[in-house]
């Protein structure tokens, strides 16, 4: 590496622009990253962060603007070019291959022709040096999300990059895992490497980063030293106005008198596939008027648990699950809906909604078995009453503040946050006695997330039982009355939110409570 003045920036991006059709995803963005600094890129979903870093990594090409790397103008035409320059990337949705081993996954991204055996050894050594232990022969599909992230990071470090781009790295980690990651990042900074840290977690950015660039609607909304800002001032830059914090009435009445609306007794289930988790003797009761949260690192059985409760996976014994007092363990999803339950799965497109169908059809599909009759006419002919569907969609859109283009767009045309608001609104419109929701605000921007949380609180206040599965501990502590932790397919006992601390929950998420 040539000797350069220390004040010359490592990366200097000038007026970079990217458009998709009429949409301007990135509008003349400027960004300067110095050597040895951790630089935060902040912004809501849809602010253009992902598009921007894809251009830095060569996955997308800008339509205008210039990128200078170590003082030299460069054209990053592909990820291989980016790697050649010394730019490495750790993706948010890991670009890993489930059916390959850790070493094979690492080998795929190395351009040099190193034998697989050597890669395994080097990956293990490097992992140990940076506090990222790794078994090179493990199948990725068997690993936890935290372990997968380690593979991504080691894969990136093996290329000896000068700039490492991390896309929302802590969104999938326990607080303890995140702490460990920060130690690794600080070590890299001490070695003179630069890091572009993409996040919407303001406390992390304040704690870790030297500089922050804030994006809003594809434009740079501000550039600051995050340590001199408050979370509220950073949030204002991101959103453009103050975010509402969801409010909950603390006194929700004595549990003694409240009616149990959702009862789960001794739910066990063997794993369904090589990458699926078994459930072990889960018992939980959710009473009318309360919100119960289930915390845990993803992949610990939350998906399987949700499917068992919703009826996608039926149980052998009917009394395993009771909805409103009725044994429903062997009932399918429609029957459970008929008993007054509503379900919002984690995966919005393809599970919560059919991407290529318009909102009206998506509305009817989930409510067909319960109150679908209201949207049909012609008696046994069951003809769709288009205008009634349309007006029902209209009232959901209005109630939940769904931003959409056109009167009745396809589900896939809505942004993640807006589609989530629509799906939750669709279920809420039925006034369900029981609502089970998995990752209600995953990938949803702060404004929409606050809206969704408030809607859940309002539903519980009106006397429904709400069960929320989430990885976001702050969210659970904000809205839940009681919290339990899921770890390796088993559920801890529930704790009142008031007694819960982040440290306590984090230890339980890592399974440490069992050792104690």
């Amino acid at each position, binding site marked *: 590496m040539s000797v350069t003045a220390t004040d010359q920036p490592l990366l200097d991006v000038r007026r970079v622009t990217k458009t998709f059709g009429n949409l301007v995803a990135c509008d003349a963005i400027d960004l300067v990253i110095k050597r040895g600094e951790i630089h935060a890129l902040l912004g809501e979903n849809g602010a253009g962060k992902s598009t921007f870093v894809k251009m830095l990594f060569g*996955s997308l090409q800008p339509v205008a603007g210039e990128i200078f790397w170590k003082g030299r103008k460069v054209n990053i035409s592909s990820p291989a070019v980016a790697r050649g320059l010394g730019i490495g990337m750790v993706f948010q949705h890991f670009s890993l291959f489930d059916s390959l081993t850790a070493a094979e996954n690492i080998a795929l991204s190395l351009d040099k022709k190193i034998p697989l055996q050597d890669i395994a050894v080097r990956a293990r050594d490097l992992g140990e040096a940076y506090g990222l232990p790794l078994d090179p022969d493990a199948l990725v599909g068997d690993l936890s999300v935290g372990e997968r992230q380690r593979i991504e990071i080691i894969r990136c470090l093996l290329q000896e990059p000068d700039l490492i781009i991390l896309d929302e790295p802590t969104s999938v980690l326990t607080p303890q895992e995140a702490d460990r990651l920060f130690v690794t990042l600080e070590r890299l900074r001490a070695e003179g490497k630069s890091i572009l840290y993409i996040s919407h977690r303001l406390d992390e950015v304040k704690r870790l980063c030297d500089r922050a660039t804030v994006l809003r609607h594809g434009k740079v909304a501000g550039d600051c030293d995050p340590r001199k800002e408050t979370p509220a001032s950073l949030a204002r830059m991101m959103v453009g106005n103050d975010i509402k914090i969801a409010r909950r009435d603390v006194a929700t009445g004595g549990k003694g008198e409240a009616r149990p609306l959702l009862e789960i007794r001794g739910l066990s289930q063997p794993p369904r596939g090589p990458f699926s988790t078994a459930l072990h003797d889960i018992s939980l009761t959710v009473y009318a008027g309360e919100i119960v949260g289930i915390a845990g690192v993803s992949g610990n059985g939350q998906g399987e648990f949700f499917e068992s409760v919703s009826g996608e996976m039926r149980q052998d014994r009917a009394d395993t699950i009771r909805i409103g007092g009725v044994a429903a363990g062997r009932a399918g999803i429609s029957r459970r809906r008929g008993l007054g339950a509503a379900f919002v799965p984690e995966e919005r497109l393809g599970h919560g909604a059919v991407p290529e169908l318009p909102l009206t059809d998506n509305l009817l599909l989930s409510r067909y078995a319960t109150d679908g009759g209201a949207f049909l006419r012609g008696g046994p002919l069951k003809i769709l009453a288009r205008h009634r569907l349309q007006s029902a969609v209209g009232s959901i859109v209005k109630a939940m503040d769904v931003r959409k283009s056109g009167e009745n767009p396809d589900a896939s045309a809505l942004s993640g946050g807006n589609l989530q608001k629509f799906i939750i609104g669709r279920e809420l419109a039925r006034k369900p006695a029981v609502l089970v929701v998995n990752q209600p605000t995953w990938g949803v921007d702060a404004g929409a997330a606050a809206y969704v949380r408030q809607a859940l609180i309002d539903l519980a206040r009106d006397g429904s039982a709400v069960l929320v599965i989430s990885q976001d501990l702050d969210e659970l502590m904000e809205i839940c009355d009681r919290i339990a932790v899921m770890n390796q397919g088993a559920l801890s006992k529930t704790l009142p939110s008031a007694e819960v601390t982040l440290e306590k929950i984090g230890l339980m998420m890592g399974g440490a409570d069992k050792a104690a």
Partner: protein
Amino acid sequence: MEMTQAILLTVATAATPLLIAAMGELVVERSGVLNLGVEGMMVMGAVTAFVVAQMTGSAWLGMVAAILAGAAFSLLFGFLTLTLVTNQVASGLALTILGLGVSAMIGESYVGLPGIRMEPIHIPGLSQLPLVGQFLFGQDPIFYLSILLTVGVSWFLFRTRAGLTLRAIGDNPGSAHALGAHVVRIRYLAVLFGGACAGLAGAQLSLVYVPQWVENMTAGRGWIALALVVFASWRPWRVLAGAYLFGAVTIGQLHAQALGLGLPSQFLSALPYLATILVLVLISRNRRSTMINTPASLGKPFVPDR
């Protein structure tokens, strides 16, 4: 003794075309592409091999032409599904129907003509060994190619960087693209390889198995090859086992029919299919291993980011 030798030889002859076609399709499917046109590419190979051998008098030239014809025909499939991103199932079915029609047209004036047989290669000394001598060391060149192909595909997929990339693309083309792999280009190469193998399998039919041209002479072998790939959980050596099992039961039931065992002939004819499915289902009943080997993106079209 003589009888055993003869049976072993006929088993190999029946198994080889299945093995070659299935091995090609295995590579295609490992890259995430489902080409249901194996039957069509195979029959194109068969007619091309026969016609070129007739015109040039050389079975070897016929074989090379069949490989090229199969590859060229698969290129049409590649263009439809990889460049135009059409539905793979429909395109593959169309390829089969087209192949059967075009081959019948090309071969019309060749029906019933005596063919040119590809002569076996005898390895001196070794082919005289009792029992397995003929089987292992006195076979036609395409038999040896089929064994080399199995070794080669297994080595390529699991021991080379390129094979790793191919498997990664079949598992998750989006991620592979993000890492800088040329997904469409590699899938094209896989499809071409599959076509070349199907063409070679067709050549074996019209140059070795039955040296003549009959319309629709593949008689469903392309479909059996496709099924073998699935039942063998996309693993090369299991494909070999499946192909030979199928060949063995096919020949065995012919002998059984000749002996007049008193079983319905329809049942005996169905036996190879039943036995192969049963055995391959049994060896692949470990669901974990099957799911790991199944290309996760099989049949799903891939369009790179803008």
